[in-house]
Structure formats: C-alpha cells, structure tokens
C-alpha cells in the first residue's frame, strides 16, 4: 500500500543491525517512512526555491534535514548525478558505486585548478523595449516565436505586432502595387492592363516595388501554372519591368529567370486545349533572349546557364513536345550561332525521332501529331534562320549559278515528294506556305544541286546510324582535315556537315544542302530574298 515496500524496510533494518524485525513492524513502518520522506522532500523543494533553482540537489535535501533538526546525510554533495547500481542477485537493492581511492594517489596528484571566481558583467537587454542584436542577448528568432504566441493568446486584437519591415513603402506605392497585382490577376484582357504595362515600362517611380514585383511574379507563376491568361499577363508584366530603363532590375534577375524559363519549357501551361501555350512559349523565348542580350555582359554565366537548361530540355527524349518546342524556341531566340552550335548537330537524330510522330499512320493521336508538327515547324524555323544568317554573311555562295545536272532532278524529286506529302500535313508558319507550292519549280534553281544529290544519296545511309546525336558535339578533329572548303566536301555525310556547322569555316552551302536534305524545299524560303528573285528571273 505504500510506495516503500516492506522488504526495503527489512533491508534497511538489517543494514543497521536489526535482524529480528517482525513483518508487522515493517508493514507499519513502511507508510510512515514514506510520509517522512515526503515531508523532507517538501522542505527540500522549499529550500530549492529559495536558492532560486528549479533542479533539486543533494544540498537542498541536506538543508531540509537541517530544518528538521536532523543530521544531514554526508557524502552526497558531489555535483554530478548519483548513479545507483543494482546489487547482484537482488531485485530491489541498489547501491552507489563508491570507488576506493588510494590516499597516496590523492596526495601526489597535482592540485586541481581553482575554479574561476564569480564575476558580473552588464549589457543592454533592451533599449527602449527593443533588444539589440549583441552576442549577450539570445538570438531574436528564437525568442518571438513563443512570445508572439503568448501575445495572441492573451489578447488577440489589441496587440500591435510589428513586422520586420526594413524599408517602408509609401501608401501610394502600396496601393499601386495592389492595383497592378489585382489587374494582372483578374483583368489581363482589359485596356487598363495595357495601361498598367505601359506604366510599368516607363514609370521611373516603381523602383522600390521591384523586389515585390519579382516576388509576385515568381510566386504567382508557381501557383498558376494551369491558368494560362494569368501566366501570360505575368510574363507581360515581367517584360514591362525589363523594358523600364529607370529601374535597376539586375539584383532580382535570379528571382525572375526561373519563372520565365518555366513559362518557356514547362510541361503544361494552361489547362485547356484552346490555350495557345505556343504563343506564351514564343513570348517567353523572346523575353529570355532579351534578358540574355541585355545582361549577358554583366552576368557572364547567365547565357550559358540558360542555354544549358534549354539544351537539357531539348535533348531529353522523355520530355514532351511542348517542352521541346519551348527549348527550341528559346535557343533559336538566342541567335543563329546558338542554333548552329547546339541545335544543328543534333538535328538529324532528332528529326528521326520526330518523323514517326508526325506521320498519320504511326501516330494516331491528333494532339500529339499536332504537337510534333509544331516542334517540326520550330526546328525548321530555327535551322532556316541560322542558315539565312550564314547565307547573308556569305552572299557569294549563292551567286555562282553553276547550272546543275538536271538528270539528278528526278531523284531529288522523288525524295522530295515524300517530304512534300508530309509537308502538306504540316502546320507551317504562313511565310513558308508559298515554298511548298513552288517546291518543284524551285528545285533546279538551287545552286547546290549537286550537294543535295550527294547528300540525298547518303541520306539512306545515315538513316540507320543514329549515333550522331550528342556525341557529335565532341568535334572530332579528324573531320576537320577531311572537310575542305571545296566542293569535294560533298562526300561528307549530312550528319557530319551538321555536326561541323559550328565551325565558322564550314561551307554554308554544305549546310544548306544538309538542311535541305532534312527539311526539304521548305528550307528554301530561308534563303535570302535576293537569290529567290534572281532565280525566278
């Protein structure tokens, strides 16, 4: 019935030499022992409190015993916790391990260092109620967590919680920000939004709001990935901010870029089929390009990082076509040299993958087919623009109209027929429509007829070999020697031509031929106009 078992009483009795303790006495004593122990502990707790402590020590028990006019229990004043050990063979007998200490050893051991004397230091815990951030004070983060909770608990309404705002926005700017945010989120089709964009692009006073806007864009893009109008509106806001000459947006680019890249290569943008996410991707691509152009010299690693991200998206076959589209558009927007360096070497292999997706027989899914065609269009455009750029740089390439051998025409035509059939199904940029119509007629005019023929013959060979993918980026040196400037290069395969496209000195003519091989006559629309006219004459 008592917490003290009678066995314990018996053990204690034995220890002080009473061997013939009757069980009745033990039973009667046990509750009294418990009562006395409790009494002592109650006094000990009082002593503890008056020593301003919350942990009970052996000293407190001693003082409590003292209060009751009892001898304190000596030998327990050590500061470390006492470790009781269970006596072997007994369930309920414990003892404190007391080591024998050699007196000689104690005598000979060097004196332990004297404890450091007590001292007092002073510091400011608070200055007019605010805790200064000095090492003597507890870190501020830890403290308010429970402090604030208590405040709310005590009085929910009347506590003035001060937010840690370092610079305070004026009321007007806050209103402005709220208004813009509201328009962006809800009324992006209204005229007001256009005005807002204009204001953002021109107003010099919005600078204090830049961090808020970048945060707003980043936040809302992450939250509204399936809300197409909002995404588009946000991108427009981003563009306006970037256009504004008065604001210093560089420090916030790192916040802005992920959002824009997201709008470029996200798996899904908007939740409806009708959402024209292609347009959004185009928009974002332009935005990325403009940022890279504007800030590329300040942040020298900006463009490499962007291109790396986009290239990864482009080369990853597991990514969806819209993502590929976005990546291609992004890369294309960065300029022809990027296309030449990064897209062209992988073009052929990619087209091999793309081909079956576009074919009516192989891909039954209308949407997939449509997507594939969009990607094809993007690739075409990228490659075409790149070529255009080359041709423009070396206009002489088109000048010599070395009349080609007509006999090859038939062969080329056959290959082109196949292409053309697919091309008809293909969605193309309107500018290129004409090209399809006049494909047959234009063929002979192509100054690179021979190349095309050569390339076409080699086309069948390369269809099987798909090892030209990324590996071709390694620019094998041996090929450099093989490829001359002269037309002898025609022996080279399309793939190597494309792979070598990054080299300045690669013949643009070769390039055109290869591209023509891959894209068919639609590529011709990218040759500079001048040549077109002249050839038609």
């Amino acid at each position, binding site marked *: 019935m008592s917490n003290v078992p009678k066995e314990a009483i018996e053990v204690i009795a034995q220890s002080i030499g009473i061997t013939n303790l009757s069980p009745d006495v033990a039973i009667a004593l046990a509750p009294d022992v418990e009562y006395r122990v409790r009494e002592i502990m109650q006094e000990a707790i*009082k002593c503890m409190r008056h020593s301003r402590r919350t942990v009970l020590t052996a000293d407190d028990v001693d003082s409590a015993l003292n209060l009751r006019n009892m001898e304190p229990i000596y030998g327990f004043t050590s500061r470390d916790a006492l470790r009781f050990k269970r006596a072997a063979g007994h369930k309920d007998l414990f003892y404190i391990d007391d080591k024998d200490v050699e007196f000689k050893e104690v005598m000979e051991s060097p004196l332990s260092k004297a404890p450091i004397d007590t001292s007092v230091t002073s510091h400011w815990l608070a200055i007019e109620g605010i805790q200064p951030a000095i090492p003597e004070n507890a870190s501020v983060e830890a403290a308010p967590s429970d402090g604030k909770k208590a405040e709310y608990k005590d*009085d929910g309404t009347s506590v003035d919680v001060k937010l840690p705002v370092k610079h305070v926005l004026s009321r007007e700017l806050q209103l402005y920000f709220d208004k813009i945010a509201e328009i962006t989120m809800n009324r992006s089709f209204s005229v007001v939004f256009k005005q807002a964009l204009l204001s953002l692009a021109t107003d010099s006073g919005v600078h204090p709001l830049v961090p808020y806007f970048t945060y707003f864009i980043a936040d809302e893009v992450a939250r509204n990935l399936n809300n197409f109008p909002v995404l588009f509106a946000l991108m427009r806001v981003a563009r306006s901010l970037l256009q504004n000459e008065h604001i210093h947006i560089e420090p916030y680019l790192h916040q802005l870029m992920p959002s824009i890249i997201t709008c470029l290569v996200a798996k899904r943008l908007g939740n409806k089929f009708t959402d024209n996410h292609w347009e959004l991707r185009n928009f974002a691509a332009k935005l990325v390009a403009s940022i890279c152009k504007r800030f590329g010299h300040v942040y020298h690693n900006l463009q490499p990082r962007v291109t790396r991200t986009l290239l990864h998206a482009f080369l990853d076959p597991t990514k969806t076509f819209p993502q590929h589209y976005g990546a291609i558009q992004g890369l294309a927007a960065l300029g022809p040299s990027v296309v030449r360096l990064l897209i062209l070497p992988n073009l052929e292999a990619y087209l091999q993958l793309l081909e079956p997706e576009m074919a009516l027989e192989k891909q039954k899914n209308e949407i997939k087919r449509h997507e594939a065609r969009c990607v094809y269009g993007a690739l075409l455009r990228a490659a075409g623009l790149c070529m255009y750029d080359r041709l423009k740089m070396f206009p002489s390439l088109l000048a010599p109209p070395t009349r080609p051998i007509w006999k090859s025409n038939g062969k080329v035509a056959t290959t082109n027929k196949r292409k053309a059939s697919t091309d008809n199904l293909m969605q193309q940029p309107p500018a290129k429509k004409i090209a399809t119509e006049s494909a047959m007629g234009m063929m002979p005019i192509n100054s690179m007829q021979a190349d095309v023929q050569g390339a076409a013959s080699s086309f069948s060979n390369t269809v099987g070999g798909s090892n030209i993918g990324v590996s071709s980026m390694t620019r094998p040196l041996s090929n450099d020697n093989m490829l001359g400037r002269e037309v002898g290069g025609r022996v080279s395969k399309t793939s190597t031509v494309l792979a070598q496209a990054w080299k300045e000195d690669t013949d643009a003519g070769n390039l055109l031929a290869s591209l023509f091989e891959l894209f068919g006559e639609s590529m011709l629309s990218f040759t500079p106009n001048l040549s077109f006219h002249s050839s038609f004459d």
Partner: protein
Amino acid sequence: MENMQAVNNFVAAYLKKKGFKEAEQLLEDLQNKDSAPIDFHNDPELAKFIHHFSQSEDDVARYQDGYSKLRSWTYSSLDLYKHELLRVLYPVFIHSFMDMVAKGHLQEARTFFNNFREDHELMHSRDLQKLEGVLSQSHLEEMEFARSLRQSKVNIKICQYSYDLLLQYLHKTQSTAMLGVINEHINFQVSSGQPSSISDDAEVVTLIGSCQDTANQINQKEIHWGLLEDSLEERLEKAGGLLSDSEKTEEENKEGDGDETKKRSVESGKQGASTKKLKKEKALNATAKSARPEASTTPAAPRVKAKLPLPLMSTEVEQSILEDLRNRVQLSSVLLPSVSFYTFLNTHNGLNCSSISHDGSLVAGGFSDSSLKVWDMAKLGQQGGSSILQAENDSTSSEHVVGPNGGKRSYTLFQGHSGPVHSATFSPLGDFILSSSADTTIRLWSTKLNANLVCYKGHNYPVWDVQFSPVGHYFASASHDRTARIWSMDRIQPLRIMAGHLSDVDCVQWHANCNYIATGSSDKTVRLWDVQNGECVRIFIGHRSMILSLAMSPDGRYMASGDEDGMIMMWDISSGRCITPLMGHSSCVWTVAFSCEGSLLASGSADCTVKLWDVTTSAKVPRNEEKSGNPNRLRLLKTLATKSTPVYSVQFSRRNLLFAAGALSKNL
C-alpha cells in the same frame, strides 16, 4: 422470524452506536416481551434506512462506489451547471479519502486516491501531493494541512438549481456516504439565479480550511492605501511651479509624455487651453491611475499620515532624489524601458539571490557558501583604466572585508553568515545592505565601511526574505518559522511579529506608504499586515502554488504577486480581489517590479525571460466588468529573452531604467 431477528439486531446496534440508551433498553424490553413486534416492513423509509445502516461496516466500498457514481453523474450533467457541480467533487474527494484513512482502510484509501486523483491534478496538484503522503490516522492528526481541512467546512457558492439537482441525485441514489461527506464538510452558499461563471472560482482553488470565513471577515477591514503625506514626489509637484521656468525647454521636448511635465505646465499655466483640454480628457480616462492628482486642489489618491516615525533625510540626498524624479522617463505601453542586465558568471550554481541598488551602481549576490558579494558597477567599467582610479581602488580595498588577494577581486566580499544567504536588499540610498540567511540571522552591512554592523537574531528558522522599507531604516523579514517580522536598524529585537500564515512566509514587501507590509507564503495566500498593530488586514486567495515574489504599485493601489507556476496575479488592495491573472511565464516568477509611475510591471522568471506588462489597461476596466468574467486585460507588452540566464531580480531605478540580474547557467 429470522429476518425479524436481524432487523432487531440492527436497530439495537444503531441505537447503541448513537448512544440512545433508553431507546435501546426499551427495544430490549420489547424484544424480551416479544409481544407485539413493530412492523418494520410496513414502513419502507425505515427499512431503507436500516438497510443502509447494515452496510455501514463495508462503507469503504461505498465511498469508492458513491464517489465514482457522483463523478460520472456530474460529468454527464448539464453544461450550464457542470462547473458548479464539479467544484463539489474535489472536497468530496479529499474528504472521502481522509474518511477512509481515518477509518483505517488504508489500502482502499490509496487505491481510491490513485483512481481519481487525475481529475483534480490540474487545479490542486500540490495539495494532492501533500495528501498522497497521508498513510495512517496519525498522519491526519500530524499534518497541519489535513487537520485544517478536517476541522473546517468548505464554502461553495452554488446556484439554486445546481443545488437542487445535487440533492435530488443524492436522495435518489441513496448514496448516504456521499451525503454524509457533503453535509459534514461542505457549506453551500445557495444563490438564486444563474450559475456563476467559470472564471470566478478563485475561492475554490485554495482550500485552506477556516481561512475562507476569516478571510472574508478580514477583508472587510478598512485600508488606507493612499500615499504618504509630504512625500518627496508631492514636494516635487509643489516645487514644480518654481522649477518650471528653468526647465521649460526640457518640458517642450518631453511634451505630452509625462505626468510631471503636465502638472508643471498646468501649474505654471504656460500651455495653451487646448492642451489643457486634452489633459482633462486623459485624466478622465485614467480613472485608476489617479494617484497623481492632475491639479493640486483635487488629489485623487488620498494622503495618509505615516504610522511610523519616519527617518529624516539629509537635504543633499533629498536634492539628488528630486533630481532623479525630475529626470524620470515616463514609461507607457508605447515607450518601453531600457533594460540593463547584470549577468553573474561562474557562480557554480551557488547564487541564491541578487539585489540591485536603486541607482544600479551596486549589485549584490547572496551565495550558498554563506558569502555576500557586492560589485560596484561603476568601478567595474573603469577597471584597468586610469591608474589613479586603480590606486583609489587599492586604497579602499585595504579596508574591505576581503581575503588574501582582495586587491585583485572585482567585488567586495562580505563574510559573516554561517548558512546560505537567501536574500539581500539595499537601503534606498544604497549605503546599507541587509542579508538574510539560513542561519536564522539577518545582517546589516555598510557599503561605505565594507563591514558588518549588526546581526539581528530573532527568527528561529531560516530567513527567506528581507526587505528595506521605502524610506529606509525599517525593514521586514520573512521566515520558515511562519512569521514575518518588522525591525528597525537601531534595535536588535523585532518591533512586530506577524503570525498567521499556515506555512512558510516566502516573501515580503512594503506598501508604498510604509504602513503595511505584504507577505507571500507557501500556503498559497498573500496577506497584508498593518505595521502599526500587527494585524492581518487582507488575505488574497487565488494562487495555486507557493508565492515567490511581490511588488507594490507606487500609487499604493495595486499589488502583484508571482508564483511557482509562472502565474502573476494583480490584486486590488482595497477590495482584496484579483484584478487579473497574468499568464505568460512558464516557470517560477522570481521577481516582479512596478515602474516608478506604475504604468508597467516587469517580471523575471526561471524561464530566462523578462516580461513587461501593461498595468494601465487593466486599470481602465470598469468595476462591474471586473466582477463579471475577469477579462484578461493586462497585456503582455514585451518578452525579453536572456541567453539561458534565469532572471533573479528586476528593479526600476528612480529614473525608470530597468535593471535585471541573473546567473548564467549552462545546464538549463
């Protein structure tokens, strides 16, 4: 006929027990005659009673049974009346337990206690801990707490309907054991109308036996809580008119944020009428903060005569205090004080108390190794500075009561006690220190001479606390011997002994007008004593654990007390009621202090924080609102966390700078 015989026997046993000898005789006669036995069976009431009486032998089980039934009935009762009925459970519980112990059914009592203790753990854990130790009849006798419980009745306020419900239940279930306990130990104060609100249960929290009645009686006594006549502050107000010219510039700087400034301006009449109007409005708002009269003609705080002969103050000292008062920062909920924190390092868990002088220049620490150490903060800052000061230090240190390497020490060591020093207090002028120790003595030390002047012997047990009066000269002490004593510096015998607490007196504090002292005790009450006649004039009941700290508001109207659980209670001295409990600390509140104009309360706790509370918001609560529901009006303004340093003392300087002190402890 056998049945008949049994009935007769029961009746006989009953009569014997109750001592109805004649009736017993009569019954015996009747039985012997056996002529016409009373037809017990036709009287169902009687039969029932007899039936119950027959069970009296195994009534231990009935306590258990009855209590558990009463408990489940209470818990399933109507929500509106539940909390009233729940209050009944606790006294029934402890008295059932003690009844069982008294009847010698110890084993059953223990099981009963353990079965149901959880219900009351929240409210009464400390009482339960005490009662848990009661294991035999003799303990009941020995233990004061149990004895006082047994001897007195508990008052429980209950509304008519709850009372009816309870009676109905008890009659219907015929739980006579419970009925007995309730009749014997509970005194119902039945009130008509709606049941009282839950928060209004201050009286229920503490069962202190007979105290309740006497407390109510005592709390009727008149108290003059007003400030002293002709105090320095009053003199300052009067002098304000003269001083205002020289301080006009300062006044304009501080405009609007201070009473004194206001007063001065009102008297000098140099401010426009509009500001005056503003002030009048403010005055209307601050109903309770009326200790400072807005105009000298209508003092809101009554002035009282000192009952003690007050010591005289030298003019220089007076001037310096006046100067301090004039330069005081007016604190409010929007203007929080600066806090200077003194950290004791390397105390090796030996620091028992700390005290800071009024100007913050001296810090004293009482240690468990019987020593009292005093640091001069002004010297501390300059140490190793100019050689002149160093030399000065050395010259003074030769007079110190110090050990062999006294010159190097950063503090002055006062040795004399032979037990742990539990409390130290500076005189208002900082020239004396009093320390109290477990060796039952109080010692007076001079900071000028660095020597022990007097040893006051009078207490029989450790002296837990000692406090100088606000005017100096007099001091009060609190001891384990359950008394508080008033002393004056020039006599070695106490002037008054305040006895009445049921347990240790743990802390003591003077009222602002020096006519009263307040004591906090382990019996969970705070008492206010008249210094002149030694009578207890107020009992403040409401704390749930030992009271560790006390503070009096400078206007004399309020008192704050902090307890072991981290609760601080704000009391209205004149009514004896708790205005509002301040919840926020999670551990022992070692110290509380009012700011000098009484608008803020600072508290320091073992949870390593200093908290600042708004006093004025609570004062604005209208009386009637106060009574109904006790809204938690006192706001926690700020929590200042220290770096693992429990706060042992907080103290506002006369200029309203807050000083706090504590010992850095690593093992927290």
